[in-house]
């Protein structure tokens, strides 16, 4: 708490990010994968929105993501503006095994482009690609617990075991073309295996006009947590996921 309210690092930039998308496409799983790099049973059911934070290094800067993970049910839609208000970034998630979820994602994108912060960076993420990858053996070996957790929000009846292209309802090309046309970042991800998750946040970080935010934020005194002075990650793009996870747990994700 104390670090959240008062601590400050000159270099850290606070980025408000909102997750939107149809119910059960795996928004919460994406966030959990990013924030704690693991699955847990959903500790916090999403009512309105769940709030999580995660730090992320980009070159010499530390970004502090404030993530609003919104409820997916249609009737919560009218509450969404409360959360995407002033957001600098948005991740719109759909489920590659469910065509209608892309349609919903498109309406979210439209809404964001018209109602939200004009400079908002939007990423489109097609989640659950583990379900459509030809060989189920590609899933990470240590995922017993993860499978269980993922199933909590997965559409019932869809087992990862029977994975294969046949489950795919949204071709990559189609979604990618749309993303290009609408000017979105595009990813296909699996919160279960972790594939593509970090990339979303890294690419967003690259695209965010950090200097602008720094200049416009109140005196540059962003409330960031402990100085994220650790470097050296295996990940490309300067994001040190492992380190961040540790920090996220004791520092922000309270």
């Amino acid at each position, binding site marked *: *708490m104390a670090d*959240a*309210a*008062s601590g400050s690092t000159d270099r850290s930039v*606070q980025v*408000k990010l909102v997750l939107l998308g*149809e*119910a*059960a496409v795996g928004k919460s799983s994406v966030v959990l994968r990013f924030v704690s790099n693991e699955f847990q*049973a*959903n*500790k*916090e*059911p*999403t*009512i*309105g*929105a769940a*709030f999580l*934070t995660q730090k992320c290094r980009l070159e010499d800067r530390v970004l502090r993501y*404030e993530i609003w993970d919104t*409820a997916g*049910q*249609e*009737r*919560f*839609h*009218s*509450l969404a*503006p*409360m*959360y995407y*208000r*002033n957001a600098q970034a948005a991740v719109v998630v759909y489920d590659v095994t*469910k*065509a*209608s979820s892309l*349609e*919903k994602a498109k*309406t979210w994108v*439209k*809404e964001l482009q*018209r*109602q939200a912060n004009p400079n908002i960076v939007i990423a489109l993420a097609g989640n659950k690609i583990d379900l459509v990858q030809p060989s189920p053996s590609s899933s990470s070996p240590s995922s017993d617990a993860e499978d269980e957790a993922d*199933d*909590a*929000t997965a*559409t*019932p009846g869809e087992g990862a075991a029977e994975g294969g292209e046949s489950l795919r309802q949204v071709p990559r090309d189609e979604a990618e073309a749309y993303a290009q046309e609408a000017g979105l970042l595009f990813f296909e991800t699996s919160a279960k295996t972790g594939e593509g998750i970090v990339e979303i946040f890294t690419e967003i970080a690259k695209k965010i006009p950090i200097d602008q935010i720094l200049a416009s934020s*109140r005196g540059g005194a962003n*409330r960031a947590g402990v100085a994220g002075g650790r470097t050296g990650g295996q990940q490309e793009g300067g994001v040190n996921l492992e380190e961040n996870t540790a920090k996220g747990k004791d520092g922000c994700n*309270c």
Partner: protein
Amino acid sequence: MSTISTHLRNFKEPTKEQLTQLFFSLPIEPQTSEIQNNGKEKETKGSNEELERMEISAMLTLGVQGVEEPAQGKLYLIPPYLCFASHDRKSVRFTVPLCTIRRVERLNARAGVYALGLSLWHQMKIVVQLTSLRPTADLFCSLLRDALKAELQRGQMKLVKGFVKSCYSEILVAAGEEKEGEAKVEDPSPDSPDYMYLGGLGLKFKFPGDPKKLREASKTKLWTTYLKAHGRNLTLLRYPQCTRLVQVGLPNRLRGEMWETLSGSIYLRFSNPGAYERILEENKGRISTSTEEIEKDLHRSLPEYSAYQTEEGIGALRRVLQAYSFKNPETGYCQAMNILAAAILIYMAEEQAFWLLEVICDRLLPGYYSPSMHGTLLDQRVFESLVHKCLPIIHEHFQAVDVQLSVASLPWFLSLFINSMPMVFAFRIIDCFFCMGPKVLFQVALAILKINGEQLLQIQDDGGFIHLMRDYFASLGDSAHPASPDPRARAITRFQELLLVSFREFAVITDETILTERRKFRGEVVHSIESFSKRAAIRNLKTLERFTKDQAGLIYDALFKAICIIPPPATALPPPPLLTTKETAEERPETRIGLRTFKVFLSEICTWARSEKIVSNGFQQRVDREVAEHELIDRLFYFWDTSFRGTLSFQDIVSGLDGVMFNDLMENIEWFFNLHDKNKDGFLTRDEVLTLSESLLFIFRFEIGDAYLGAVSRFMSNAFEYGDALLPHPEGHDPEKDAPPQIESNQPYMNLATFRMVVLADEILESFFETDFSGTFRLEPVPMMEIPNSSSGIFGGLWSNITSDDNRKIFNKFTDEIGKSIGKHQVFHRPAIGKFTTLEEPKARESLLTPTMRRTASKASLKTPESPTDSSSEKSRPSESSLLTVDQGSTSTTSLASSMYSPMPSMFQAAANAAALMERTPFAIDDAKDDEDDSDLDSEIEDDGVMDEVDAFLEEHDSGVTDAERELAKDLINAEPVK
């Protein structure tokens, strides 16, 4: 691609009677599902409704001396219930079903005293002294007698015995009696034969929290004593001690039943035996959007509680949520209900939970979980307003740093704090919520902010706010005054502090406050929901066509108004599953309007689709607008229904209007041609030419002067002349000599080129198609429909419409007329185009077609003697004049303006301003002194401090009873029944 909902407009303020019922936690509506299932029940329930209600001043005395003070208040007979509330509406009250009254006797007491002794189930006796005049008291007694008789006939009395066995309190009291004298009350063993009561998952999977820390034993003992003397379950009498005991937290095993009793859901369960199972049985295997959504959330509902890691717990949760969604398909399932249901299932059985959920969603948190979630949004707005009033500094700071309260407070209200704070604490707030009503949520929420006031003033953004709140909730079990030298003060937890601040400092927040505030903001919230869905609807259009967003907004407004007036069919059928999967059809419900709604819609934006009568009576002018009926409008509807579904979507309408509003001369002619070319073969038949002429006449029906009429008549003669002339002639025939070939009226007759030529031959028609026709479609701001309780008149904008430039000329004309015959009632039809404004001497207007001819024209072909002549205008003229006159004559008809257009008296909203809210009593955690005696406390439980906490909630309850009355009450207890 969206739904347009107008149901928020239908909100009605509860009547006084309903408020009373609400206060006593009575079911407001008869349980419809129940009635349908049981014809016999229906009859008896019907007779209940005929039973009269009555209220009467009374003094209530408990039959056992010395336990409670007599209380002055009012007795309400609301069959099948008898209720009482003390004058302050909070210290003493009860709601008992009449069937629990075993005996009523008139008491023989002092002269002039009218008292009844009531023996209730549970061997309880209460005395009510009716303090009204004798005839009133007599009337009350006779009504009570009738109501009791009806209950007896219904056989309800017999049900009580079986029902109370399902209540834990019975076992508790029985056990207490058995072990009379023993200090420690043990829970009856679940294996004992008495184990019949309904209980929650907690019985098997343990209740949250440490029973020792929760001081379960002491609380249970206190409750046993209370329930013994004051009745229980169906017959509970609520005295101040009851509220206080609730405030220190209900014991786990009793909690479920007390929630039922306090919230009134027990009456639903009592009067609908077996309904829960029946709903499940009847809907077995049914799949709906709700059931699918429920499945997704089952494993996300309090997953850390062990029962919800088993099929047993998940199954119970599934059944309760599904049963609710089947019973209330409109609400269905809303996220957060899973958390509520999961929480209450720990303490109560499925059937109990089902009815409690019903009471929560329907009565306690109305509209919270509805598809628009308007109740949630409204209460968030109310909360914000209360913060503004009670905690102005915090409000100001939040404004300054642009933080919205709702980011944190929304889940507090929506899931009753369950996923915001440790469960043991949330359950204690819920105890109070069921006991004292929804105001508790506001009181607690305000107290949270107040307690954290200083830190809140430091926060800079949403994130900081959320963090602060999380940390606070996590620390609720800590001491509120860790540094205090007084051990008693040190023992007070932050949670206790929270409740004390809630109920002491924010006692000013009453049910009335909430009602008033809700009334104040309802219009605003409804408006914002509606404009949100409007924006979404416009955004989700596949194409705006050539309209701007604002214009699309105007179209939407007109559509919305039409839907308000004539709601579309309840559920538009999903499209045939040819292209779309079932899934998508279900998830993207779309509002589609039928023909009747379309007519209203069109009348809003198209001048000829309405009949407007300008009525002047010398004092005022008003416009009576009616929706016009004509085949042309039906034709247009089906013309726009490009997907042949018999309904139009918003998109259909936008695209349809686009096809006509931006047209130039040629496009308009073509459009009009296509509109009448039913089979789209590029040819009009003779019938269609006639229909087209009728359409023109319909459009021109209110135009002033004869110009248009002449034009249509010339059009017709030309049309048939050219049409016949251009017909392919059989070989060898001399077109000059032979009669034109006979052609069936439904055969292709005239193509677009010919039609165009005929139209362009006439100056008036040319100008009509060039500009005037498109001009009859006007996107003008639709005066917003009245939102309930907002203060503007229903069609406030109408008057300014009348005085718009377009019509001013007509008005000037009419002021002349009024001058001529002042005070005389006059009616004038407003023309659809209004180009020609010279009003000539009203003369009979000529029409081309008689009704008889229309019939012949459509049935028989035009081989009839009239048309296939050399049809010169010379010839057709006279024939016209022989036909019936139409239209102008209808000025005298007294068609009634539809009532929905009559201006409603503007409602003035009472500017209720709870200035009292600003007054705040100082925070007084430490002077929780004992105002009332606690001398007869069991010495054994003193040391665990339950009573300390109970006492902290003590308030001065002035029962308003004088000593003399007290004396009398004492007498009454011992009085003998009248023989």
